[in-house]
């Protein structure tokens, strides 16, 4: 009996050791090359999957012995970024080509996740078609090119004309100041309490989106303008500014008066799906700040098909606080494609990326996904200009648009901004308290000598 137990234990022990040994390495076949491509694919975002699914067979046919392994990740932007960063920590899991938020390029380049592409783009004839702004969007702190832009975007107020008209507001609606927004929103609330008059995203639920489509439109429209978050002259983070507190106060006003979504709704990471899928089509939302890519959800084949959007919706610039110059505010971001620094076949990876970014593919992607083109030849194409009725309006916003500070600690600062707006809309802190808490957090992250009192 004892002997049998001992044998059993040994078998289990040896077996598990063998199991461990078996896990350590899988030899790869040198003749077969695999390019792993990671990107986001959700029920609401399939444009990139469509693009890669189209490019994959073409690329494999042109490069015998190469397999393109598509790795679509169904996740929110923030979860995707986390997963991507974790996968970069080991050569076993790191993708060769991947979808990278422009806002993360510098930080990820500094982390050593991205391959410098200067030598590759130098030999790429299409590179000259990219605008200088687009080229810069993919640069790292050291000035090298780390990623190539897929397209950019701007942000505008999207409003429902029926809701506006029902509330007695003339369309086209062009608010000139924050007060104009409040006046219109209060009118809507008075005319139909079941309608959400004007939403601005806030809090950590929607992550970076709540800053890009909410707080920054306010902050960059205050007196410090483009330097309201990060002072470009001294290259320091701004603390103690009136604009920050005023922006939080505006959020507090619209949330406290019930002009925006309820705080509980605003903190739901999936709320934007209701905004696009239900609230606007059902005329239950007056207006909100959203990206230039908005029509892509409503066009035929989009996630929330609603062909009437072309006549039902309007787009206008978000006003500055008191209507001061330049009269409007927009934020730009966009996503890029990059090559992993641990890639075993960097040239192949770049070639795949370059093919995905070719004229035809970029045109198709920009049109389907309602992106603002970064290739000059695409921007001049008739089909691009006629892709949806709003292309002209949102492209004009490039004039008043702002980019996020391109520093490697930006992501941590962004989280602090989200926390501040969440504390205000949930009533946990007053705008002044939240601003003070933000200042303390920024000082702790950036260091005393990297902040400037304004």
């Amino acid at each position, binding site marked *: 009996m004892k002997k049998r137990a001992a044998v059993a234990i040994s078998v289990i022990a040896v077996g598990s050791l063998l199991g461990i040994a078996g896990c350590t390495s899988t030899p790869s076949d040198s003749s077969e090359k695999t390019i792993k491509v990671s990107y986001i694919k959700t029920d609401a975002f399939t444009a990139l999957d469509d693009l890669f699914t189209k490019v994959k067979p073409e690329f494999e046919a042109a490069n015998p012995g190469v397999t393109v392994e598509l790795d679509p990740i169904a996740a929110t932007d923030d979860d995707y970024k986390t997963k991507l960063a974790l996968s970069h920590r080991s050569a076993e899991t790191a993708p060769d080509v991947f979808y990278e938020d422009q806002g993360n390029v510098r930080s990820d380049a500094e982390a050593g996740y991205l391959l410098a592409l200067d030598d590759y783009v130098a030999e790429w004839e299409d590179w000259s078609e990219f605008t200088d702004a687009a080229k810069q969007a993919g640069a790292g702190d050291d000035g090298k090119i780390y990623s190539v832009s897929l397209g950019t975007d701007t942000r505008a107020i999207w409003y429902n004309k029926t809701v506006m008209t029902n509330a007695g507001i003339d369309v086209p609606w062009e608010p000139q100041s924050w007060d104009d927004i409040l006046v219109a929103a209060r009118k809507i609330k008075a005319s139909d309490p079941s309608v959400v008059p004007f939403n601005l995203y806030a809090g950590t639920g929607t992550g970076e989106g709540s800053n890009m489509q909410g707080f920054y439109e306010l902050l960059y429209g205050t007196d410090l303008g483009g330097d309201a978050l990060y002072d470009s002259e001294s290259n320091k983070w701004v603390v103690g500014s009136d604009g920050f507190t005023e922006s939080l106060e505006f959020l507090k006003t619209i949330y406290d008066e019930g002009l925006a979504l309820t705080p509980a709704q605003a903190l739901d990471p999936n709320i934007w799906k209701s905004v696009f899928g239900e609230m606007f089509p059902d005329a239950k939302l007056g207006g909100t700040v959203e990206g230039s890519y908005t029509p892509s959800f409503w066009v035929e084949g989009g996630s929330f098909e609603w062909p009437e959007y072309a006549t039902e919706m309007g787009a206008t610039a978000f006003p500055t606080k008191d209507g001061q110059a330049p009269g409007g505010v927009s934020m730009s971001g966009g996503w890029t494609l990059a090559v992993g620094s641990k890639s075993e076949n960097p040239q192949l990876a770049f070639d795949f990326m370059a093919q995905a970014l070719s004229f035809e593919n970029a045109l198709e992607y920009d049109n389907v996904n309602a992106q603002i083109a970064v290739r000059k030849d695409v921007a001049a194409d008739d089909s691009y200009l006629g892709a949806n009725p709003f292309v002209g309006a949102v492209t004009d916003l490039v004039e008043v648009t702002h980019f996020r500070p391109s520093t490697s600690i930006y992501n941590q600062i962004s*989280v602090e901004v989200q926390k501040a707006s969440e504390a205000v809309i949930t009533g946990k802190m007053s705008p002044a308290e939240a601003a003070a808490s933000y200042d303390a957090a920024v000082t702790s992250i950036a260091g005393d000598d990297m902040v400037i009192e304004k």
Partner: protein
Amino acid sequence: MTAEVISTAQGAQSERRPGPQRSGRRSALKKISRFVRMIPLVPAIIIMVVFLAGPIIWSFYGSLTNAALSGANAANSSFIGFDNYVKLFNDPVFPQSLWITIVFTLASAVISQNVLGLGIALVVTRANKKLATIVSSTVVGAWILPEIVAAFVCYAYFSQDGTLNQILALVGLTGPNWLYTFPLLAVILANLWRGTAFSLLVYQAALNDVPPEISEAAMIDGAGGAKRLFFVTVPMIKNTITTNLMLITLQTLSVFTLIYVMTSGGPGNDSTTLPILAYKEAFRFGNIGYGTAIATILLVIGAIFSIIYIRAARPSKD
């Protein structure tokens, strides 16, 4: 089992029989055989060290660095001593989160799951078989569900347009958004619902081992229901209670999926227990070193609870 033990004991005795003159060689042999018997344990010990002690030491080391998910500190993290802990103890979120963790653990596990589990077990052992089967299978149902499914069920139950508010609407009441207005209560109730089955099963097994004669004897001596419970049944299953408390405390301290799915720790930090805080800091905000420091604190808290329970479970001289 008993027969086997006796036969082994006899075997051991018969081995001991040979005369004293050979005892020196015997003891040397014994030493060798003891060593040989240890050999099969070596792989197990190695596995324990590699997979249990290793990660703990590694995570403790990680908490002493400024490792990050992105940026310069991701490429080259450096040793920063106890800075993360200093920062943690100065962070206003930490005491709040620690308090929430303790409230969550005490309320949903130590008190609710434990008492309710024992209560239902007492009812089930006394009730007729049909009722007992229905009750215990209903309770165990929640335990069988994978945690992620249970979490979605609770989300659907407590959310704004959820089952609970629809039931309330039937009687003309408008319920609040439970996950937003009472997030901690919602997750406590959810964990209570999900975890009670464990205590129920443990106590059911223990109660079945309590000899009915003792209870009957107490009854003949004139002890009422409550007296019999507190002076006869509870002392007899004391060790089971301690073991159960230890297991459910440790389980509840590390609950993540349930809370993350239901409230993500929000609104604000109102339902952020330490595991949620550690996850948020490490993976959402990218501060791996800081998140690991929180995880290390959680490990210490778990260890403190374990020591308390293990001491309590030590057999008293009876």
